[in-house]
């Protein structure tokens, strides 16, 4: 007899961790399945306390690393300090009709261990924009329904930030804000005064705690800025530091690692899922687990992969494909452009500590009276710091060179980099490529995603506005840059199983239930109907907690 649970959660990242916590705290016997290995909190963070000189290659890449990671090598995630925390591209290939950078974390905690921790609420317009502009389909929910769930997850996760009272970027339940440095304060003051407070520069809101959370056994941030190696203090939100221990405390959670979910088991008579089938990555055996409900939180594109492989005897394209939208509307945030320059006048000041967040400039385009030749908008992330190294004359070596490089530069440098909203396009899609198999013989995903005219037009503003704002704020030697963007690089994959109001045009309903199997919930990035321009993880947390509470109620009522 297969083991029977009340709930199965596929995936252990930000969404999976929240689902496991909420379902087990609400009394459900819950099984969380993780396809990769375990990384134990603190103990598993092998590089957390290493100094740079303890890394053999001082955090640079070896040719072996590059060869094993033909995708990861395309951007910053491939480095020595987080090595082993991103999956191996050779074992987990995929195909690219168009370039797509897919950076995955296959282990307990998923990318909650390596995330950027930037945490922002969506605003009311984000949920309304599709309907107002006739883009894709309408979100089945509105900000007012989300607000209490944002509050709920923020209080638990711990988000530091400053209260600003902005409609465009609603305040969270904040822990005390981290401090802007002297150069950032200077630029902020000049910028806000020039734009008469229509543009703001604030501290980047992040899931780093600035006060201890003893009830969660978490210490406040120590300003080491080594978050992505795993934090021994539990100072940033991750599955390991926060949701997993809470779920474990209930006694209701079972965590199984090295279990690759092959499909959701579907009963066409009851039109419900009955559990999941998994492949044990170690024994190579398949196992069935039974449950009353299933939460699919395998990360956006892998959640859709699971659906595409489920109930194929009923729907050729898999569970949720009856709408014709499964696998479609892939989104990310487009970025890697902006401007930087020199801030003078602070050569008598320096920083102490390494702050794990920067500045944020909330969206101001296409809000209120502003109207551009594209839809939606963008925000900026960045920060100022005093550089290292004094200028030296040509052909200087020896003591003079050493001294110059051991001193801070005279001036501070500020950089701001824009993150833009990408519209959901039906033709931006993933599909199964059965001609290519991964290490376990499973079909892989093929990517066909690109940015289009709207994003390209927006990118002009994203770069030019940065230079303009820095210039009016008195920053010198302002230089614009566009380092180029390929979809996926934002590591904010969204869409492919969107929420909506109509089963004919959406995969999920307003409670994240698959229309075609109401006891299956998808609450990670896959469910997103549009992308906003703010970092998405906080919204996944709120959506997951909301859906879990709903699922438990429905289960009690006997509706699912």
């Amino acid at each position, binding site marked *: 007899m297969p083991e029977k649970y009340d709930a199965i959660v596929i995936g252990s990242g930000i969404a999976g961790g929240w689902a496991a916590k909420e379902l087990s705290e609400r009394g459900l016997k819950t099984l969380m399945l993780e396809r990769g290995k375990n990384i134990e909190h603190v103990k598993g963070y092998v590089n957390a306390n290493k100094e740079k000189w303890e890394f053999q290659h001082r955090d640079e890449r070896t040719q072996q690393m*590059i060869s094993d990671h033909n995708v990861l090598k395309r951007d910053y995630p491939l480095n020595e300090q987080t090595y082993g925390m991103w999956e191996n591209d050779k074992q987990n290939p995929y195909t690219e009709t168009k370039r797509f950078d897919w950076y995955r974390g296959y282990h307990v905690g998923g990318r909650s261990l390596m995330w950027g921790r930037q945490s922002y609420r969506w605003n009311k317009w984000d949920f309304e924009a599709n309907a107002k502009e006739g883009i894709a389909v309408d979100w089945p929910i509105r900000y007012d329904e989300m607000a209490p769930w944002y509050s709920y997850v923020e209080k638990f996760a711990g988000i530091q930030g400053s209260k600003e009272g902005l409609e465009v970027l609603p305040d969270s339940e904040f822990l005390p804000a981290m401090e802007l440095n002297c150069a950032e304060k200077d630029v902020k003051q000049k910028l806000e005064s020039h734009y008469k407070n229509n543009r703001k520069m604030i501290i980047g809101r992040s899931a780093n705690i600035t006060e201890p959370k003893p009830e969660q056994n978490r210490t406040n941030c120590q300003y080491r800025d080594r978050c992505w190696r795993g934090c021994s203090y539990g100072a940033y939100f991750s599955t390991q530091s926060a949701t997993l221990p809470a779920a474990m405390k209930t006694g209701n959670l079972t965590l199984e690692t090295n279990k690759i979910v092959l499909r959701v088991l579907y009963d066409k008579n009851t039109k419900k899922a009955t559990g999941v089938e998994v492949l044990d990555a170690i024994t190579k055996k398949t196992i069935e687990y039974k449950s009353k409900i299933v939460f699919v939180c395998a990360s956006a594109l892998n959640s859709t992969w699971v659906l595409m492989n489920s109930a194929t005897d009923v729907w050729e394209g898999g569970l949720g494909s009856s709408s014709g939208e499964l696998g479609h509307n892939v989104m990310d945030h487009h970025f890697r452009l902006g401007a930087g320059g020199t801030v003078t006048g602070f050569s008598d000041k320096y920083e102490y500590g390494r702050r794990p967040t920067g500045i944020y400039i909330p969206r101001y385009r296409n809000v209120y009276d502003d109207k551009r030749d594209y839809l939606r908008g963008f925000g900026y992330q960045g920060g100022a710091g005093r550089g290292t190294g004094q200028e030296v004359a040509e052909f200087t070596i020896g003591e003079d060179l050493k001294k110059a490089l051991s001193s801070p530069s005279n001036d501070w440098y500020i950089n701001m980099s824009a993150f833009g909203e990408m519209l959901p396009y039906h033709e931006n899609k993933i599909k199964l490529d059965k001609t290519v198999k991964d290490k376990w013989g499973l079909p892989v995903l093929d990517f066909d995603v690109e940015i289009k005219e709207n994003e390209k037009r927006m990118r002009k503003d994203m770069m030019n506005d940065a230079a303009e704002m820095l210039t009016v704020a008195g920053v010198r030697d302002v230089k614009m840059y566009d380092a180029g963007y390929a979809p996926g690089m934002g590591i904010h994959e969204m869409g492919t199983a969107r929420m909506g109001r109509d089963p004919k045009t959406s995969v999920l309903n307003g409670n994240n239930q698959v229309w075609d199997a109401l006891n299956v919930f998808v609450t990670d990035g896959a469910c997103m109907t549009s992308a906003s321009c703010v970092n998405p993880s906080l919204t996944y947390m709120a959506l997951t907690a909301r859906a879990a509470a709903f699922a438990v109620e429905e289960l009690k009522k006997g509706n699912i």
Partner: protein
Amino acid sequence: MDRRELLKTIAVLTGSVVIGGELFLSGCKAKEPFVDTNPIITDTSTGLPKILTAAQVALLNEMADTIIPTTADSPGAKAAKVGEFMNVMVTDCYLPANQKIFTDGLASFETKCMAKYKKNFESLSSAERHDFIISLEKEAKPFDKKIAEDDKIRESSINKENDIATWAQRKEFVPTGRHPYTMVKQLTLLGYFTSEIGMTKARRHVSVPGKYDGALAYNDGDKAWSE
């Protein structure tokens, strides 16, 4: 200072992107590492041979110590074992073509040194060492400038082809290896300022700051933070 900034500083100083530096060579195709037929040094962690000989590592330590010497406040590059670091980096992180430039370059340094001083580098006085390194600096600069110009033309032509190619047909631009002295200098600076000596003695390092101050008083002569 994060490592990206260190790489940038070194790139600006040497006029060349740092070999192996992320984002700069991110498109390289990996090949089997070149292994010297007569290796002497073995990597203790893997047991695999490293490219450079003990004599070459010793030479690199001396050259590096001329670039970053011991001063009143901190030991120099040799004490920080920058030569050993270069052996690891050239073996593990360099593409075969660059490994060859590096090892051929070491031989050429010795030939040049003998021709000029009738002595090997290790036997030179410190003034001679300084002059010899400066002569390499002067040789490397126009050499690298020419490569940079040629690379720019090559890269833009590859980019043009890529603009009309499908993703699968796109070619990767791999920068041409620079002058071997430039490689030595880059690895010296990278190795030194990421070493324990460089990070804690030449610069300042606090592993666990515990707090943040965005307007710390700075007095002339205060050292830079190492990260």
